[in-house]
């Protein structure tokens, strides 16, 4: 059973992140220019998540992972960098699409900032990796289970595969990969989200 009820099992929302218990909504940093223009997916285009079906919008998406972006300067966030760069670290989950939605205000475009949630809380993510991205699991379907650890993939979406983590492929020690959270409820035929407790 889905947790609660909403149109189309919560897919009828213009947002992709469902906030259940909020930590902080952080707007300290500006969004990098490529945060408004990136493709989705951003890096690996051969094993595309089924949760991106029909999404042609550019820019970071709600539910995707905000990263530090030292290549763009001080106090800048966006999706992960490709090709790899050091010190691109996951910070939290973007709340909204950078480009906003038709017939709504577009605060990301207007302010140059896109808020992300961090500092704990519980969230439902409608965008997540459904296929392995790298190594021996590339192209294989991902099965999420309650209790799974969650990382940021090289595309900047959540995944339970540490080998696909953006920090791992950035040439950094796999031991340094940030644990973003823990799955509370896995996607099912009646739940189109990964519900997770955030650890960052």
């Amino acid at each position, binding site marked *: 059973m889905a947790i609660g009820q909403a149109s189309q099992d919560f897919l009828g929302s213009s947002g992709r992140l469902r906030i259940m218990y909020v*930590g*902080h909504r*952080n707007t*300290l*940093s500006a969004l990098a220019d490529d945060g408004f223009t990136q493709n989705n997916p951003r890096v690996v285009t051969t094993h595309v998540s089924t949760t991106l079906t029909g999404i042609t919008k550019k820019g970071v998406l709600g539910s995707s992972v905000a*990263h*530090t*972006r*030292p290549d763009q*300067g*001080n*106090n*800048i*966030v966006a999706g992960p960098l490709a090709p790899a760069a*050091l*010190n*691109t*670290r996951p*910070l*939290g989950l973007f709340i909204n699409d950078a480009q906003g939605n038709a017939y709504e205000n577009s605060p990301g475009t207007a302010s140059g900032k896109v808020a992300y949630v*961090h*500092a*704990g809380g519980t969230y439902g993510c409608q965008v997540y990796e459904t296929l392995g991205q790298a190594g021996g699991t590339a192209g294989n379907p991902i099965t999420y289970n309650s209790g799974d650890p969650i990382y940021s993939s090289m595309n900047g979406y959540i995944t339970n595969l*540490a080998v696909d983590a953006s920090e791992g492929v950035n040439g950094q*020690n*796999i*031991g*340094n*990969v*940030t*644990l973003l959270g823990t799955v509370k409820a896995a996607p099912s035929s009646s739940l189109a989200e990964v519900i997770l407790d955030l*650890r*960052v």
Partner: protein
Amino acid sequence: MSSYGGQSSQDFRGLSGRVRILYRSHDNSLSLLMPDGFTQLNPPVPVTPSQALPTSTTLSGVTKRGVLGGSVAFSRTSGTSDTYVGGPTRSGANVQAGGDAPTANDARVRPLGFFLNDAAGNDYENKPAIGSGKAPYFTPLGCIGLQAYETAKQIEWGGAAAEPMAWTTGKLVFASINGLITPRYRDALETYSAGLLDNTFALATAVTGSPRVTILGVAVVVPTADIPEVAVDVAFRNFA
């Protein structure tokens, strides 16, 4: 204008504290401050001619004793009670070459958060730490701006100590041997107290990705000419 945007006196330097709480978590005052938390030098590992550990430029002009706002609060034990917090335990004599080796108690000194105020307080203000024996600290999670941080390498390893180091956004943050934040895990108090370094700073064992060393968070804003502050997204964890 600072990289944060916004305005404040002297580009945010007109504060009596060294901490700006950007996204608040908890201000924890459960534990008493160790007596040496009121008397320690700053930095607590003093510079000596024989084995100079460089002093952070952010401590220039600071003669006040006791833990400082923006420094790291560590778990401490009095020997009979564990309900204390304080600064780092290693005195200069301990850490300098020829000093004693880390003890079992040192392994229990772990970072908990960031002190919000100077233990000694400020002139013409209330002095709640002296009055209560407690010094509240900021606990994870949240975001905090710190105006006390290491500005040079502390331990001679892979480059001369005192060599300036670069703060870069995205770097992981650790608690230095002086109890200030540093991006170098080799300078972490826990690296030393876990016996990963010996008392002559020689490599005792591999420390890369050591699970013994606590990651305090990620630097999201680094010091510039506009504002001498490191903003940290605070999320304590250890290497996998």
